[in-house]
């Protein structure tokens, strides 16, 4: 298909300043293929159906809008107290000084730039591969752009039970930060890992994680975006699950001008389970978009999507969630809920839940609600002496509880809850 002129020009402008890192190797080939995909698709535009509720223009301009740096010292990092392997990226480049050694029992960790130079590598069958699969039936050009131009990332191969979580931390030192990071995680049969992500990132952030889960593998992902309001981010997580695998992802978004989080999950093997959850808290010119696409191909798989938005002062929340049940995916159990708590009349929540089912023996449900705070509950709390703001904070936490409870590890969900309590109560 030929791109129209406007789209072609926009794409040319966007990639004019980008260059594919040299070094050849398997990665060079993967990048070239991704670039070809991107050139065929063009960048997303306002009129694209998949971007109906979210204007992608600030994600696609040649350079990001200049953005003041965020002072992290006035904000506690949620995972500080945890025993974890820290990997720090500054403006999209791995920072060895602030990071721990890339050594974790049961896990191989390599930097993308270095591992990419070899002729063959295990990540060849993953890097850009799930992203490419994810371009059907809906195009996700910003993820192809990422595969082509990623400045850095890590390749993680998990062979046993990782003894502690890998914690990816994103910082920025530049007002024009335009970071593009790409990680691959392959979890081998029966192995298990937890990946944490946090940090204020910067002016613009494009991140992709591709996750390949072998039979019985277990993957936990908890991402807590900090309170840097000035950032714009587009993230994709692509996952492929073999028989009996478990995928769990939770994202906390407390601020930012624009966030688009896409999760694209394929349940290929039988008896696999994928849960994607998110909690977003928005104030003023906040625009948050969770876009999820779950494909059931195996039998007896379970998927859950649980998204909660708390919005005030004109903030906007978006949920686009789809469950596609393929022919033969019998006994599928699919659940999807998206809810918003609108703290005033100015805020808006758009939900587009979709089910597409080609198997006959399935159980799928979806629901979406938007509502105000429960005034009766608020009065009940206040009548017991709880100040209004604190009472409202407790009710907001209660509203978010279902999403937070999707985190399996209680020590981590407690940290997330404590972080929110600190912000709200």
């Amino acid at each position: 298909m030929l791109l129209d002129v406007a789209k072609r020009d926009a794409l040319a402008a966007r990639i004019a300043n980008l260059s594919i890192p040299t070094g050849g190797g398997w990665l060079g080939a993967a990048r070239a293929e991704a670039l070809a995909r991107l050139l065929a698709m063009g960048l997303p535009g306002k009129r694209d159906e998949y971007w109906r509720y979210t204007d992608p223009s600030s994600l696609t301009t040649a350079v990001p809008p200049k953005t003041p740096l965020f002072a992290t010292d006035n904000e506690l990092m949620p995972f500080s107290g945890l025993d974890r392997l820290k990997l720090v990226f500054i403006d999209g480049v791995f920072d060895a000084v602030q990071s721990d050694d890339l050594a974790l029992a049961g896990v191989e960790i390599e930097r993308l730039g270095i591992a990419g130079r070899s002729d063959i590598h295990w990540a060849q069958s993953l890097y850009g591969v799930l992203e490419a699969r994810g371009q059907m039936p809906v195009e996700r050009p910003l993820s192809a752009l990422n595969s082509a131009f990623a400045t850095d990332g890590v390749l993680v191969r998990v062979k046993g039970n990782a003894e502690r979580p890998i914690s990816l931390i994103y910082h920025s030192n530049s007002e024009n930060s335009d970071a593009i990071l790409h990680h691959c995680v392959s979890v081998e049969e029966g192995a298990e890992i937890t990946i944490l992500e946090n940090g204020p990132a910067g002016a613009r952030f494009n991140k992709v994680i591709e996750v390949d889960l072998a039979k019985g593998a277990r993957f936990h992902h908890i991402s807590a975006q900090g309170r840097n309001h000035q950032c714009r981010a587009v993230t994709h997580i692509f996952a492929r699950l073999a028989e009996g695998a478990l995928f769990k992802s939770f994202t906390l978004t407390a601020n930012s001008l624009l966030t688009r989080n896409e999760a694209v999950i394929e349940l290929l093997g039988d008896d696999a389970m994928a849960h994607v959850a998110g909690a977003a808290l928005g104030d003023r010119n906040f625009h948050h978009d969770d876009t999820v696409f779950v494909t059931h191909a195996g039998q007896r798989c379970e998927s859950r999507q649980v998204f909660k938005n708390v919005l005030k002062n004109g903030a906007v929340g978006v949920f686009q969630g789809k469950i596609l049940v393929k022919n033969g995916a019998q006994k599928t159990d699919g659940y999807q809920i998206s809810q918003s708590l609108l703290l005033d009349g100015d805020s808006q929540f758009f939900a587009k839940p979709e089910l597409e089912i080609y198997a006959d023996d399935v159980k799928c449900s979806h629901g979406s609600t938007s509502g105000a705070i429960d005034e009766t509950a608020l009065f009940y709390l206040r009548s017991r002496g709880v100040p209004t703001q604190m009472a409202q904070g407790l009710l907001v936490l209660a509203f978010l509880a279902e999403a937070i409870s999707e985190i399996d590890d209680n020590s981590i969900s407690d940290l997330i809850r404590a972080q929110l309590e600190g912000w709200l109560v």
Partner: protein
Amino acid sequence: MIEIKNLHVKLEKEDKKILKGLNLSIGAGEVHAIMGPNGSGKSTLSYVLSGREGYEVTGGLVMLDGVKLLDMEPQERAAAGLFLAFQYPVEIPGVSNMTFLRTAVNAQRKARGEEEMSASEFLKVVREKAKTLKIDVDMLKRSMNVGFSGGEKKRNEILQMAMLEPRMCILDETDSGLDVDAMKLVSEGVNALRSPRRSFLVITHYQRLLDHIKPDVVHIMAAGRIIKTGGPELALQVENNGYADLLAEGV
């Protein structure tokens, strides 16, 4: 303790008058009961005293220990010692009883400039008080009132009262929905809190409760006013004859 003078209240959104010149005065350490037909304004009085929105005070004055009550926010009234046991306790999914109670106790202490209760001390006290009310501690870990039976909700109100140690307690039909044993438990809970420094306003439809919680004064309320005041014998009279005679007298 509390003094209500010529209180007039209407609904904020409609032109409906509910309280029409109500006078009531309760001294320290006294227990007063209010009885009255459905819709006479008893719950409205309790809500207006605790500061619920939706009502407009068009006249009158309420003093709690010499301070103007109606000028305060609900949370300030609570910190000043006012407590309402709700006729319909509210369910709050996602907020555990424990969190609710600890937040309330400490918020009140903070408002009064007192030291907050430590987690361990709080737990000890709450366990003790729950036990006397036969409330299972596991129940306290659950969401506020969610899935509680009617009687459990009412006992939970009394537990909150016991934890918060208010000085002016208003009980709105705390006996409704209670079985005979629970009514005894709740009454014992209330009686245990009786003290020369604490006053009670007990709203009820049934004389039975007043066998357990012995009132000093009984008021009859009708159409937004107190139409008769007397001793415990007034409750017996209502129990036996209903309101017809009293209403006829009151006009």
